[in-house]
């Protein structure tokens, strides 16, 4: 029974293109007791944690998703004929940081923080679905307000926003010195 549950959970995670949350799994497997599902997830994670496999299950954005091992990147790119993956520009990363730490935030607030007009960068981030519009601020002009999205978390492999470096960690980096300003 338990083994059966484990394979079902494995199948559900495999078929999901986005991180699959435990809640969603329980929602689908409503016939099974939640504790058994938790246990099945736990066992499944354990069986994948050995280094013998080319794929692993990782926690991301509050859910589980299959991923390859970082060491195999080279071979995968050769198969897919991709020389390298697109990375976000420094401006995009900076804007994302501003949103992540100050959300909910408006465009003019982002621009003020960065000391530069961020309209285009924000537009790109919206297209990439890394930020989302959550409403309008009740202030003159009723500007749009933005937040980071679920995709933001999974893109950076974060489980939740709490994983972002805290004030202390940031101070440490700042103390560490010049390599911050690349």
């Amino acid at each position, binding site marked *: 029974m338990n083994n059966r549950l484990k394979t079902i959970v494995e199948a559900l995670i495999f078929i999901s*293109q*986005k991180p699959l949350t435990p809640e969603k799994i329980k929602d689908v497997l409503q016939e099974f007791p939640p504790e058994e599902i938790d246990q099945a997830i736990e066992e499944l994670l354990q069986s994948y944690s050995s280094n013998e496999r080319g794929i692993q299950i*990782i926690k991301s954005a509050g859910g589980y*998703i*299959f*991923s*390859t*091992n*970082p*060491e*195999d*990147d080279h071979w*995968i790119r050769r198969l*897919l*004929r*991709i*020389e*390298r*993956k*697109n*990375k*976000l520009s*420094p401006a995009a*990363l*900076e804007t*994302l*940081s*501003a949103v*992540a*730490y*100050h959300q909910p935030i408006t465009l003019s607030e982002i621009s*003020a*923080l*960065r*000391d530069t007009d961020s309209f285009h960068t924000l537009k790109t981030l919206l297209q990439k679905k890394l930020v989302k519009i959550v409403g309008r601020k009740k202030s003159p002009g009723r500007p749009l307000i933005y937040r980071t999205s679920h995709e933001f978390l*999974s*893109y*950076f*492999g*974060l489980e939740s926003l709490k994983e*972002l*470096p805290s*004030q202390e960690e*940031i101070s440490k*980096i*700042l103390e560490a010195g010049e*390599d*911050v*300003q*690349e």
Partner: protein
Amino acid sequence: MESTETYQVKLKVFQGPLDLLLFLIRKQKIDIHDIPIAIITQEYLEYLEQKEKINLNREAEFLLMAALLIYIKSQMLLPREKAAEEEEDPRESLVHRLLDYQKMKAASTLLKKKEAEELLKWKRTFLPPLLRIEDLDLVEVSLFDLAEAFFAVLKRKEREDFQIIKRKEHSVEEKIREILTILRENSYLDFLDFFIRQQTLEEALVSFFSLLELIKAKRVMAVQERRFQSIKVWLINDSPTGK
């Protein structure tokens, strides 16, 4: 004889005359939040009731001190108006902004690191369409189709009221390199999307000529899955010399 003595306040955090308490609060040796004013006044009233005579001086003094205490505490408890804050210290807001800026810079460095780590782990989410040009039943578009699509984009751009602030020189060689880079990274390029992103008419024209050059050299192919669908440009021969 008792009447000449000042009234003593008895609290957990403080014991003594009220004026001393006020002094300490103003010097910030004692936190006003820890002072229960209701209890002080309550006890004072009880103390008064026990007295036969009222010492006007002493009572007036207490009233003044108590009023000051209440004023200070109310100031601490009430949310301040924005205007008052702005007047405070302009340097403070500058320091605050600088700190925010530093924080953001540091955070983006970390995000960059995270991104690099994460991009090495391939997920099904990241998979580009596994299409290869030979697997598709595609229609290669004619020069006429391309030109038509190009002018449609130009028309659309015309309506935007944009101004050229900085004039940048564009060369066909440069554009060819840019197009090839996009193709290598993304496996294909969306024609419409690409031209909409061009900043100026000049840049769009140079891009169009570059694309035509590439098609002529059979290094890329412009295709449509079906008529009237979006035109996609695929890389077919990466090296300029190889056939």
